[in-house]
């Protein structure tokens, strides 16, 4: 099997890693890039809310367990670094460095919930193949970069995340039960979803 398509992606992504690392500082084994202010502010807000709930729980623990349970649930369900923090980070870096979110998603990045460490740890590239299938990160990147890197997408191994025909048949059956025989074909429906804005300024 030719792996040229993966090599092309790795070469380009390594260039991006070098670009990011150029603005970073090195501490021991770690390459640390300053966290965008928007993400710092977002994490501060979350950290502060968790701290307030923790204090309320502590102050009332001798009297009742209401706030203890509340805080336990909150701490369990709302880590300081959540998916929204990652989305903000990806968008900020994407804008600052003029690179795609899919490229950033292929690099192992680390975020700390420590306010004293407002940095992104820049790691190695993620794996592109798992169990002879292309990982989701590299499927997205390959599709985004197919034209720029002149990638032949047919060279890619099958994706890890994919719809099997059995899944499609199941979806169609479910749709028919819900909407009757006029229900649209699931595959046709998802393939016909147009990308981009429905409206733009005239």
């Amino acid at each position, binding site marked *: 099997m030719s792996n040229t398509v993966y090599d092309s992606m790795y070469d380009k992504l390594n260039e991006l890693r070098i670009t990011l690392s150029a603005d970073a500082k090195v501490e021991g084994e770690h390459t640390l890039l300053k966290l965008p202010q928007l993400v710092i502010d977002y994490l501060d807000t979350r950290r502060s809310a968790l701290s307030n709930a923790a204090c309320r729980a502590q102050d009332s623990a001798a009297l009742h367990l209401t706030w203890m349970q509340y805080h336990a649930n909150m701490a369990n369900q709302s880590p300081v670094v959540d998916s929204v923090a990652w989305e903000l980070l990806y968008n900020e870096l994407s804008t600052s460095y003029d690179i795609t979110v899919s490229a950033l998603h292929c690099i192992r990045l680390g975020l700390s919930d420590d306010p004293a460490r407002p940095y992104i740890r820049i790691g190695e590239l993620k794996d592109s193949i798992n169990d002879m299938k292309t990982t989701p990160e590299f499927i997205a990147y390959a599709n985004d970069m197919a034209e720029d890197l002149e990638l032949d997408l047919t060279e890619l191994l099958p994706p890890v995340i994919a719809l099997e025909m059995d899944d499609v048949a199941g979806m169609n059956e479910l749709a028919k039960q819900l909407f009757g025989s006029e229900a649209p074909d699931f595959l046709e429906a998802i393939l016909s979803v147009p990308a981009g804005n*429905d409206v733009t300024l005239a």
Partner: protein
Amino acid sequence: MTEYGTARLQVRTQFDTNRIHVQGVGEPTVNRKYGIAIELRAPPSVTEWLSEQEPTLPSPASNSTLYIPMSVVSYIEHEGVVQILIEGAELNHPKGAMLDIKDDSVAIGTLIAFVKESKTALTLQDGDVYSSEVEEEEDSE
């Protein structure tokens, strides 16, 4: 007039960064008892402007005042060409925001079909299709 008030098209001022929420009050009832509710992808320049507008119209679903008027502009001399006007402070049009539509959008198609069938908020306009882009004048030497 319907049991939900005057037949109209309206858009929520506060909704999402990348989408606008449109309600149509009137017949036919497409996906709501009052008519139609639909979401359209829109650029942040539109949604940001929208969030700064003062809502004046009530939702037929909750009765809360969360919406501003919207209409579909159909150009008499340009068959099949329509734009959407959201009424508010001037953005790219003296009356608010004039939007071009994506022809192959299913959501847009559904909305236009509702407007045409219900004859709600449909403005027939003569003249050229509106554009806020300044046309460059050719140099004459």
